[in-house]
């Protein structure tokens, strides 16, 4: 009995791609579900503290850069 290998190959392809896509679709669905659940019940509390700190640091950096530029200009 001779099996047609090409037909076998297409069977493999159907099953393989089917499994890959089903797996990924379930994965995408559970990822979306997970992010909804996590954002609703376990929100991150960090962002409230950061904004007050960041601008100050930025200001300091900006001031430092400007003063450096001024001294450089005066020297030159």
């Amino acid at each position, binding site marked *: 009995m001779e099996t047609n290998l090409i037909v*076998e*190959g297409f069977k*493999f*392809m159907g099953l393989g791609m089917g499994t890959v*896509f089903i*797996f*990924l679709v379930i*994965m995408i669905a559970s990822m979306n579900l997970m992010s909804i659940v996590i954002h609703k019940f376990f929100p*991150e509390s960090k962002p409230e503290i950061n904004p007050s700190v960041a601008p100050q640091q930025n200001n300091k950096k900006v001031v430092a850069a400007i003063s450096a530029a001024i001294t450089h200009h005066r020297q030159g």
Partner: protein
Amino acid sequence: MKNIVIKFLALFMLLAFTNVSANQSTNESTGTNTHKEETYKSQTFGHMVSGFLKSTGIVAFISPDPDELNAKGEKMSTFHKGLGRALMIILTFFLFWLAIAKGFEPLLLLPIAFGGLLANIPVANIGGAHGFLGVIYSMGLSNEMFPIIIFMGVGAMTDFGPLLSNPKTALLGGAAQFGIFGTLVGAVALSQYGIVDFTLQQASAISIIGGADGPTSIFIATKLAPELLGAIAVASYSYMAMVPIIQPPIMKALTTDAERRIKMTTLRHVSRLEKLVFPVMVLTLAILVLPESTPLIGAFMFGNFLKESGVVERLNDTLQNSLINTVTIFLGLGVGSKLAADQFLVPQTMFIMALGIVAFSVGTASGVLMAKLMNMFPGHKINPLIGSAGVSAVPMAARVSNKVGMEFDRNNMLLMHAMGPNVAGVIGSAVAAGVLISLFQ
């Protein structure tokens, strides 16, 4: 100074000659002592020299020992013993050049090529069961140990953030697996028409090159067709290195100018908890849907879980650096042992190389086409250039997407968007590998 050395050598030779003759006389006189050294037969110095000359590499290359066996203890053809080995050694030099001068995946190609060089040395039989390459092979390759450990390290290096912030791009990583199954059909078609003889197992092992994932290819090849491991590994790693050459023409041919300029929405912030839950979630899915894929996915997610837990920095560091580096050396040398002439210089190798590049191209094309298909549905548009990143090859394929995108719009940064399909591609090819394994159980 030179004269003294020559004189000294001459003196030494003279002494050796007198010693031999002295030994002979003693042997003749005291015949009773010789029974202790039955394995070592005393011979004249002339015989010793000619015997030694016969054992040199030059003689072994020109007129090989007719009874010499290969690493598996089978007879080898004269071609594989003489000219074949010389050709393979030249090929390994070519691989050195690719790795060093061209920067083709040097981390793996160099150990593989050097292993190949060692495996083709006549007489020494380094790739045999008792040679050190053979020992490395049976230690971690024939039982699929090394690719799994590499997968743990890759998991620890992977950041699933971009995928988590835009989950639907995972579909692109799935579409690229068409490269695997398309090549599988191609390989069995070749053997159906009698062009080359591949069994279904061999065809599956070859097609996994299309997953563009080195450890997965090695894992499947050792499981389904260990005799083709050398060619499959070399094809896999050299094409992965050639991703920046293979992909762009395909990507440009399949997209319009407007599509290439699509700007994607900024990725949202992903919380730490999401990243921590994700590996466990994917592993749970793998357990439920396809347990055969859990060796690969389990190892991958273990590495990632250690990283995201944030409490085992030492283990994470070991996985990402020392462990993966150590295992890479062994994996390369072990794969190199399969570059022995009698296993590599067979007609199949040529077809494996050809099928490998088909696998890469089909994978790239189907990723891009999938992105175009997804753009037909409502929702945020996807730049089709990130579709090509669905073939794993992390992070090279994502960089290629970014580079091609920048060619058409300097301000279009696609790198992080392309990382999503890129890591999904790793999961996708692990699932595809699980399907192939389950079919042959």
